[in-house]
C-alpha cells in the first residue's frame, strides 16, 4: 500500500465515520412533545437499576417529560458534578448524590432550594432519610463557617435508602440473626474453616472510605463516635480502641486478602458462600437470590447489625438534588414530586426497589417480595450517617490510612488511632475548627 493510498484510505474512513455518525444522530434528538427534558447525572449502582429501567420510562409516559440518564464512575461523577456546580454549566437538572456530598454541594450553593420551588415534604417520609437532605443539618454539630442559628433548608430528597445492614447465613445462624457481636465472634471461632474457604466474617480493608465505613458500625456499636463536643476528634477514645481491637480480632476468621478488599470483593465472598456474615450495602440485597450472581440463593437473611453497647446501622443514602444551574427546574421538581408520591413509591417497593416512605415499607406485598425491607426500615430508625461536614473526606482519608495500617499489622490499635487523631486534629485546626 503506497502512502498515497494510505492517506486516501484514512480520509475515506474518516468521512465514512462522519457520515455514519451524522446518520445516527438523525431522528434521535427530535424535541419531544413539548414538556422538555430533564437530565440526570449519576454514578452506577445496582440499586438504581430498577429506577433507571422501569420507572424513568414510566415517568416519561405519565408526564411527557423526556429523561436522559448520564452515568459515570463514582469518583468521576463526583468530579463532574462539582465541576458543573462550580462553573454553573447547567448540563444536568438532577444530581444523584451520596448523602455525604450534600454538605459540599448545598454549602457551596450548587443545589436549588427545594422548599422554595414549592415542594412539600409530608410525614410519610422516613425521618432519618429526609433529614439528610437538609442543610445546615437539623440536628448535630454544624461545621465552622455555618451560622449555628441558620434555618435548615431542604436541598435534596432521598432517592434510594441505601445503608449498611447485616447480611447473614440463615443456615449457619440457624436460630436467627446474631444479636451481639460476641455471637459473631463465637460462631466464627467455632465454624470457620479457612482450608475450605469458610470464613466467619468478611469486611472491607482498602484504605480510606471502604475501611472507615466498615469500622464505623463497630465504632458506634461499642459506644464510640467520630466527633465529640465542638468537633473534638474522639475516634481514639477507649471505646473506639476497643472497637478497633474487636475488628482486628475478627481478622483471624476472614479471607487473607481482606486488606485489599473493597465492597465488591466483600460482597463476592459472601455471595460465593465463603463468609457467614457481613455488613454490606442494600444494593446487594436483590442479588442474593439471583443464581447468576449468587451461590447462596435463599440462604441469606437480613437484620440490623448486632449490638454491643448500642445497635446502629450506617446510612449512605442516595439523594437527588436539583442543580442550581438546572435548565429545567420545573421538570426536575415534577420528577421529585412524582417519585416521592405514595403510589409510585409503593410500586417501586413492590418491584424490588428500596423506597424512602413508610407506607411503602409497610406494604405487605412489597415485604413478601423483598424480604429485606423490614430490616432496612429498622436500620433507618437507628442509622447514623457520616459526619455532616464538607471536610469529612479528608478526615476519612487520614483515619482510613491508619486503620488500613492497623489492619496490616493486625494490632497496635491504640497507636494508629492516636496517630490518626493527631493528624486529623491538626488538619481541622488549620481548617478553622475549634481546637477543643
Amino acid at each position, binding site marked *: 500500500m503506497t502512502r498515497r493510498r494510505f492517506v486516501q484510505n484514512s480520509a475515506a474512513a474518516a468521512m465514512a465515520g462522519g457520515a455514519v455518525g451524522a446518520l445516527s444522530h438523525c431522528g434521535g434528538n427530535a424535541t419531544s412533545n413539548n414538556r422538555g427534558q430533564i437530565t440526570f447525572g449519576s454514578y452506577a449502582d445496582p440499586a438504581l437499576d430498577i429506577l433507571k429501567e422501569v420507572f424513568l420510562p414510566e415517568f416519561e409516559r405519565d408526564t411527557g417529560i423526556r429523561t436522559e440518564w448520564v452515568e459515570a464512575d463514582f469518583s468521576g461523577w463526583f468530579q463532574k458534578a462539582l465541576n458543573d456546580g462550580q462553573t454553573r454549566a447547567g448540563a444536568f437538572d438532577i444530581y444523584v448524590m451520596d448523602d455525604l456530598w450534600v454538605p459540599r454541594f448545598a454549602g457551596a450553593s450548587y443545589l436549588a432550594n427545594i422548599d422554595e420551588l414549592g415542594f412539600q415534604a409530608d410525614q410519610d417520609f422516613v425521618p432519618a432519610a429526609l433529614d439528610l437532605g437538609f442543610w445546615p443539618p437539623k440536628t448535630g454539630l454544624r461545621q465552622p463557617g455555618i451560622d449555628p442559628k441558620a434555618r435548615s433548608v431542604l436541598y435534596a430528597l432521598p432517592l434510594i435508602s441505601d445503608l449498611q445492614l447485616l447480611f447473614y447465613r440463615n443456615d449457619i445462624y440457624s436460630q436467627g440473626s446474631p444479636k451481639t457481636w460476641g455471637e459473631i465472634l463465637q460462631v466464627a471461632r467455632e465454624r470457620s474453616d479457612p482450608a475450605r*474457604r469458610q470464613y466467619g466474617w468478611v469486611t472491607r480493608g482498602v484504605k480510606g472510605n471502604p475501611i472507615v465505613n466498615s469500622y464505623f458500625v463497630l465504632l458506634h456499636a461499642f459506644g464510640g463516635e467520630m466527633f465529640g463536643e465542638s468537633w473534638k476528634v474522639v475516634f481514639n477514645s477507649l471505646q473506639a480502641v476497643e472497637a478497633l481491637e474487636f475488628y482486628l480480632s475478627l481478622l483471624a476468621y476472614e479471607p487473607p486478602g481482606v486488606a485489599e478488599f473493597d465492597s465488591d470483593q466483600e460482597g463476592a465472598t459472601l455471595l460465593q458462600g465463603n463468609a457467614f456474615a457481613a455488613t454490606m450495602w442494600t444494593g446487594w440485597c436483590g442479588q442474593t437470590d439471583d443464581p447468576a450472581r449468587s451461590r447462596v440463593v435463599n440462604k441469606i437473611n437480613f437484620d440490623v447489625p448486632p449490638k454491643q453497647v448500642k445497635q446502629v446501622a450506617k446510612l449512605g443514602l442516595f439523594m437527588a438534588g436539583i442543580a442550581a444551574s438546572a435548565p429545567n427546574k420545573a421538570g426536575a421538581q415534577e420528577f421529585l414530586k412524582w417519585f416521592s408520591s405514595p403510589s409510585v413509591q409503593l410500586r417501586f417497593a413492590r418491584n424490588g426497589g428500596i423506597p424512602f416512605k413508610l407506607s411503602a415499607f409497610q406494604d405487605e406485598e412489597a415485604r413478601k417480595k423483598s424480604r429485606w425491607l423490614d430490616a432496612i426500615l429498622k436500620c433507618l430508625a437507628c442509622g447514623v450517617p457520616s459526619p455532616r461536614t464538607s471536610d469529612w473526606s479528608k478526615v476519612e482519608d487520614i483515619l482510613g490510612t491508619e486503620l488500613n495500617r492497623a489492619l496490616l499489622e493486625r494490632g497496635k490499635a491504640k497507636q494508629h488511632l492516636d496517630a490518626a487523631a493527631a493528624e486529623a486534629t491538626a488538619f481541622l485546626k488549620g481548617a478553622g475548627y475549634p481546637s477543643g
Partner: protein
Amino acid sequence: MDSSLELKRPPEAPLLRRHRWARLLPVALVAPTALFALAITVLPLGYSVVTSLQEFRLGQPPAFVGLQNYQNLLHDVNFKNSLGTTLVFTITATAAEFVLGLMLAMLLKDEFPFQGIIRSSLIVPMAIAPVVVGIIWRLLYNADVGLFSFAVQTVTGKSISVLSSATLALPALIVVDIWEWTPFMFLLLLAGIQSLPQEPFEAARMDGAGPWNIFVHLTLPMLRPVIVVALMIRALDAFTVFDQVFVLTQGGPGTATEVATLMIYKTAFRFSQFGYGASMAITLLILVMVFSAAVTRAFRGTV
C-alpha cells in the same frame, strides 16, 4: 553525487541557502504545533497558577493567600513521600521497559514467519484501556480468586496477597506498568531500527565485526535520537500515572503506592482543596520540567 555512506553530521545550511523566504520555513512548520499546543496548555496553566495562590473554604469566595500553599507543601510529609514514590516508580518502570523493549526489538527486527501477527500481538497490552487493565490485574492479583495467587499457592503452598503487602504493592504496580508499556518501547525502537540505513551494517559485517560490537558501537549510537524520545515520553507519562494506581490500590496499603498524581487528585477533588491541590500540581510540573531539561542537556549535541 558522492555516495558517502558513513554517517556524518549533516551540514544543514545548504538546504536553507536556497531561497530567501525559506528562512521562514522552519518557523512556519513548527509554529502551528507550538502555538496550538501552548494555547491549550499555557492559558489553563496560568489559571492553575492563580488557583494555587488561593484558598478555598466552603461557601466563601476564594481567598488570596500568596505562597502559603507552597509553604505548607514544604512541610507536607505525605506529599514529599508521594514524590519519592513517583520517582521510584518512574525510574524503575522506564528503565525496565527500555531494556525489555530493546531486547524484543532486536529479537524481532529480522524477517521471520508470522511476524505480522506476532508483532501485533505484542502491541495488544498497550491497546487496552488503562481502567480495564487495572481491573483485570486487580482480578489477577486478588489473593482469593486471582490466577497469580492461585499459581503461587499451587507451587509454594502459601497464599500470597500482593496488593495488601506494603513491600510488594509498588513492585506489583510497576509490573503492571511494564506489562502495559513495554510494547511502546518495543514498537518505537523497532521502528527506529527499521529506519536505519543498511550500508553501515553491511560494511561493518564485511569488516568482520561481531554482533555484539555492531550492536553497541553502531546500532545504539544511531538509534540515539529515538532512544531519547522514547525514554523522555515514557518517563513523562510515568510521572503522571494515575488510572492503574487508582483502580488497583487507591494508594494503599498504607501509603506504599501513593503517587503524586493520586495525592493531587484527592486533594483537589475529594477534599475540595483546589488551591492546595493546584500548588501540588504546579510543584510536580516544575520538578518534571527540571528533569526533562536535565535529560535533554545530558544528550545535547548527540541528538
